[in-house]
């Protein structure tokens, strides 16, 4: 993926000593065979189907798969205004949601790390938002967000604060969806960051403390670099999931008001499963996959380099 990892020419130290190198390689490939069998079939078949459909005219309610149209679908999607608008909404959502979740998550992790007692209770409460399905609690948040009957506006009203129309106001509808996503996923980041924190070895910190390093220096020099791999993995996973956001939008705002909260996947759902234009839907999916692949070739480079180097170092 990124730069080649195997140092050219050095090759791997032969370790025939351990009962024949060949059986090691065979063993390694045998280990991944079952998982790869499922992934290959259930990833490549639909991808192949989507690529094939993206070159043809396919409207399920107009005779299904029809004639070959070359790159016309790609041209139509490229010049589709709603498509680009939904990409803008998706990017806005991802940057806001993932940014907030990482900052708040790490802050909460530090908060809890320093706490002496009550950590387990707090940790189990934090898992609560995660244990509920967005399709179910998202529905309930629609009740909370109701301008007239909702609890949030009642609390704000009794404090004299303004009572916003959370899901109806074009300026704040997207931030209401972000708030729901932050509520659900910040604990995920916090729990993983907290675990990372509590797993750091003691010695370097005690040494730093002896020579009186300021907290900020310890954070910058010691804590964050050591936490980087775990946090980086969480960041990648949250970004991919936020870019594919569908459940929250489908339940809270259905893309409304207007198209203010219509993310890419929701527009894709509407095109594919409401208009049944599978050709446009597949083409959009391919654009989405392509963009993510290009981004992750660079984004995954450090993590992959770390995995492969640690794997080789131990051979």
């Amino acid at each position, binding site marked *: *993926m990124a730069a080649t990892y195997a140092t*050219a020419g050095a090759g791997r130290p032969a370790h025939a000593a351990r009962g024949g190198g060949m059986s090691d390689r065979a063993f390694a490939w045998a280990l991944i065979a079952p998982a790869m069998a499922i992934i290959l079939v259930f990833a490549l078949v639909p991808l192949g189907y989507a690529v094939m459909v993206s070159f043809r005219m396919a409207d399920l309610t107009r005779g299904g798969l029809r004639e070959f149209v070359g790159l016309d679908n790609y041209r139509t999607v490229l010049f589709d205004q709603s498509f680009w608008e939904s990409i803008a909404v998706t990017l806005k959502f991802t940057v806001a949601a993932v940014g907030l979740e990482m900052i708040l998550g790490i802050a909460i992790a530090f908060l809890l790390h320093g706490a002496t007692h009550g950590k387990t209770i707090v940790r189990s409460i934090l898992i609560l938002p995660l244990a509920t399905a967005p399709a179910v609690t998202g529905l309930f948040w629609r009740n909370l967000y109701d301008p007239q009957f909702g609890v949030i506006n009642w609390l704000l009203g009794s404090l004299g604060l303004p009572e916003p129309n959370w899901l109806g106001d074009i300026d704040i509808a997207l931030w209401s969806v972000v708030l729901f996503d932050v509520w659900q996923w910040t604990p995920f980041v916090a729990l993983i960051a907290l675990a990372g924190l509590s797993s750091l070895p003691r010695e370097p910190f005690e040494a730093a403390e002896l020579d009186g390093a300021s907290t900020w220096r310890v954070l910058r020099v010691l804590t964050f670099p050591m936490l980087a791999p775990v946090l980086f993995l969480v960041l990648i996973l949250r970004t991919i999931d936020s870019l594919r956001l569908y459940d929250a939008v489908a339940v809270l705002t259905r893309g409304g008001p207007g198209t203010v909260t219509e993310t890419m996947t929701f527009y894709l759902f509407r095109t594919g499963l409401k208009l049944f234009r599978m050709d446009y839907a597949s083409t959009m999916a391919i654009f989405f996959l392509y963009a993510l692949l290009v981004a992750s070739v660079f984004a995954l480079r450090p993590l992959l380099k770390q995995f492969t180097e640690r794997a080789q170092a131990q051979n």
Partner: protein
Amino acid sequence: MTFSQAWDAGFMAVLIFLGTVFAWLGLVEPVIGRGLLSTVLMTLVALGLGGAFVAHRKRRARKLLESVR
């Protein structure tokens, strides 16, 4: 050039090829209009860029090999 390097270069070349095709459809075609000519031109340019990248990677690998020996 090890298989891993070849695979990596190949994958990046495919991404470059597709990138040029999409860029061409989006930016160049509205200017010079559609048609067989523009499609052939597009494919050539895309293949050229991809091939250039693979060649670049081959040269870099060979240079790295010499420096190690």
